């Protein structure tokens, strides 16, 4: 499956590979640079596994100084760089290139400072998402963004992609939870932006950097907001005989002024796949399942769940089941959070990530089914219903070129539809290579030029994370210095 064009590697750089590896090893130490083929192969792809390219070399820095030295070297030698956290990007955001050095911050995992009074934690950016919460949970705190890959994905990657998760309906996405970063620019300069205080004193550079997909620099440290966990949390399951009615119920709950911590949606195929995998106790005879979670003390939880139940009753749910134990709650969430893995056992899949206005949910669900049927593909729908972030999982067979190509076509049609109804291409996974060529569906040339000029500001020679985010042809018109 190679319908997404990737530029031919720079043969001169590739030819210099042994020398480049040797020079990097001399600069950083042999233990921090991987040059052999087996070692590099571990980094040839990310979670968009259909695309694989061997990196020129892999640098595993232990410090900001290492990152700075590596970038300074690459900058001086005109070598492209791909920043990498744990390589869990579903959008190909960490896909290497044969003429690019991968700098993977995954060994930089130290907790630098925890400040409970100010509710912040300062961390090296290679720490995993879940380890941040792990570092503060003994005092009852947590780090809010919770992507499904949180066990593996790094803070650096979360910042790169502005990751969300199931609970961001209440707590916001990464950009709402990061106070400051230490970023290394392509020329090796280290810049501290933000800190333990709120908001920028001048321009909001932090806001530009979060979600910039490794295009602007490499974040090596960050100060994040930590939050005291609620006294308790409890999910409930609501089953409906149609997806449309489930969508209406979500709108009604939010319209009534109730904003739960999370509202997750699964359609029948997704329910069956997840249940078979996780034995979560999901109802098998419904067309749509909502998992709604609320927080607070027991009394507060009872109160909110009663209010939600009362609203849901108006939509004739076929199942209303409140979790009655921590074990049951854990199972309900395990089913949802292992959805991608569960689907992956059955087939290869493409995970879409468009966001739509909530009111368009019924028509978009019908259209997604139609699109996939036209391409003779199966689809399972899982999404963050509260904020309209869809994750249709398009099932295909990677060994069948036709099936793979159809899956990509169907995906593009679904995302185009999301934009057409007033939504966007990506809610939390990022553009990467996957949606790069669809950017022109959402943005006109001026919209893109305005963004690309900022890329040029941070990375004048366009060496960072090449051939991603911006359509290859759009670059030519942006700025004289910009080349693909």
């Amino acid at each position: 499956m190679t319908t997404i064009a990737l530029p031919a590697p720079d043969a001169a750089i590739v030819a210099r590979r042994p020398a480049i590896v040797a020079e990097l090893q001399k600069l950083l130490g042999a233990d921090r640079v991987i040059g052999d083929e087996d070692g590099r192969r571990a980094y040839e792809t990310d979670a968009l596994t259909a695309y694989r390219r061997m990196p020129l070399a892999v640098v595993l820095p232990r410090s900001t100084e290492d990152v700075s030295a590596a970038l300074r070297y690459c900058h001086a030698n005109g070598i492209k760089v791909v920043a990498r956290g744990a390589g869990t990007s579903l959008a190909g955001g960490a896909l290497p290139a044969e003429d690019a050095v991968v700098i993977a911050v995954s060994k930089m995992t130290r907790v630098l400072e925890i400040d409970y009074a100010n509710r912040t934690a300062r961390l090296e950016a290679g720490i995993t998402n879940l380890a941040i919460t792990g570092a503060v949970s003994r005092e009852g705190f947590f780090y809010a963004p919770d992507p499904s890959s949180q066990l593996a994905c790094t803070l650096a990657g979360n910042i790169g992609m502005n990751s969300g998760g199931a609970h961001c309906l209440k707590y916001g996405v990464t950009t709402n939870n990061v106070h400051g970063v230490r970023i290394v620019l392509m020329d090796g300069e280290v810049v501290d932006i933000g800190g333990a205080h709120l908001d920028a004193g001048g321009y909001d550079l932090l806001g530009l950097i979060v979600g910039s997909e490794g295009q602007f620099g490499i974040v090596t440290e960050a100060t994040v907001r930590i939050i005291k966990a609620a006294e308790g949390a409890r999910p409930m399951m609501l089953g409906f005989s149609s997806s449309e009615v489930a969508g209406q119920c979500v709108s009604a709950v939010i319209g009534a002024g109730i904003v739960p911590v999370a509202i997750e949606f699964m359609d029948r195929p997704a329910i069956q796949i997840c249940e078979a995998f996780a034995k979560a106790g999901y109802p098998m005879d419904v067309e749509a399942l909502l998992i709604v979670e609320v927080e607070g003390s027991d009394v507060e939880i009872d109160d909110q769940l009663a209010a939600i139940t009362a609203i849901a009753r108006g939509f004739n749910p076929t199942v209303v089941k409140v979790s009655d134990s921590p074990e049951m709650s854990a199972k309900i969430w395990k089913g949802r959070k292992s959805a991608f893995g569960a689907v992956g056992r059955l087939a290869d899949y493409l995970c879409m990530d468009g966001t739509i206005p909530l009111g368009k949910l019924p028509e978009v669900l019908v259209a997604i089914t139609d699109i996939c049927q036209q391409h003779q593909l199966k689809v399972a729908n899982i999404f963050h219903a509260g904020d309209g972030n869809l994750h249709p999982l398009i099932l295909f067979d990677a060994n069948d070129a036709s099936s793979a190509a159809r899956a990509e076509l169907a995906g593009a049609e679904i995302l185009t539809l999301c934009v057409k109804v007033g939504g966007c291409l990506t809610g939390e996974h990022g553009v990467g290579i996957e949606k790069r060529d669809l950017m022109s569906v959402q943005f006109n040339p001026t919209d893109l030029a305005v963004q690309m000029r900022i890329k040029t500001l941070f990375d004048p020679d366009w060496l960072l994370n090449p051939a991603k985010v911006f359509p290859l042809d759009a670059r030519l018109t942006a700025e004289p210095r910009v080349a693909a």
Partner: protein
Amino acid sequence: MPQSVQARPPAAEQRPDSEAALADIVKSATARRSPLEIIGGGSKRAIGRPIENASQVSLRGLRGITLYEPNEMVMSARAGTLLSEVQSVLAKGNQMLAFEPSELAGVVGGDARLATIGAVFATNASGARRLAVGAARDHLLGIRAVNGRGEIFKNGGRVMKNVTGVDLCRGLAGSWGTLSVFSEVTFKVVPRPIGSATLVLFGLSDAIANEVLCAAMGTPYEITGAVHIQQGLAVTLDHMTLRGHGQSVTALRLEASPKSIAYRTEKLRVALAPYGELMALEQLRSEPFWDEIGRLSVFEGGDRPVWRISTAPSKGPVVVAAIARYMPVRALYDWSGGLVWLDVPATSDAGAADVRRVIASHGGHATLIRAAPETRAATDVFQTQEPGVARLSQQLKATFDPANILNPGRMYVAF
């Protein structure tokens, strides 16, 4: 003082009635390298460095709410729509702007009734609830704007989650019209809380009050306002009950269902017992107090320079004590101590040298909100930046506004 800004001879004001007309004005100004002062309703005009020799462009011709979907918690409005109109339409839908826009018109001598929604986002004006729910910038979902080249562009959208491309909503929020002019903004709105109450302690010192605020914010009880007002300012509150005690006021706001408020009040009463007996203000007596915080009533009508300092919450009293070694100050702490409003004696630099030195050693940033125009012209009103950040900021300005015609000099002397 602010009045003298208004006394300046009015330059010709242009009032485009469409985004295209706005772009034409900017294009023409760029071609002539002729500076523009961008204003919404002008309520915040006296904040920032005075802009010299610029013709005014008012956004008041771009008005109207263009989208409101309560069930999707989203609204769009043209930039010149009055904030009051936005708030009144939201109130009818039992919703609100969660970040509680602060309105400093009364402090700086502007007319609060003229405040526009575009300027709320252009200045990232966030109030007490910012601590709990995020700033204006966190609620901005989409923009349409004109940059200094006269190009019309959009970014973001109308949906809650969107990571498509470079995030210019956050990049442009708080840039005070120096990078681009918003023509339309789309933002998240939220349901109004079912109930609210304020818990108050009297007579605490800054340091002890800070302990209380930080301790309360470290509970799971979802405090949505955490302020401390020194005695000298507290006795000037309009709120009779709070003023009447004649002591410093330390206040925590709860917003939830009545049942939750009762529960959380009891929990906090126990947790904070070592600090004194909490007085609870029920909703009707609570809301006027937070309205006063939103407009900084204690600084209204005065003429002493006012600083706005953002630092780590526990550093708030430390910063104030350090500055107080150089000059007599009065402080109001918001955001659990992390946002300090400070009035200082009127000197030639409004104490900038000392304030900046203290901030440099404790971290954070300071903005001179109120001062005479000549003081604001002679000093950096916004935080002086480290070299790396300063260079990136200057390049960002050049990227959006290469001819330096949008509010030139308002934030920094050089750009």
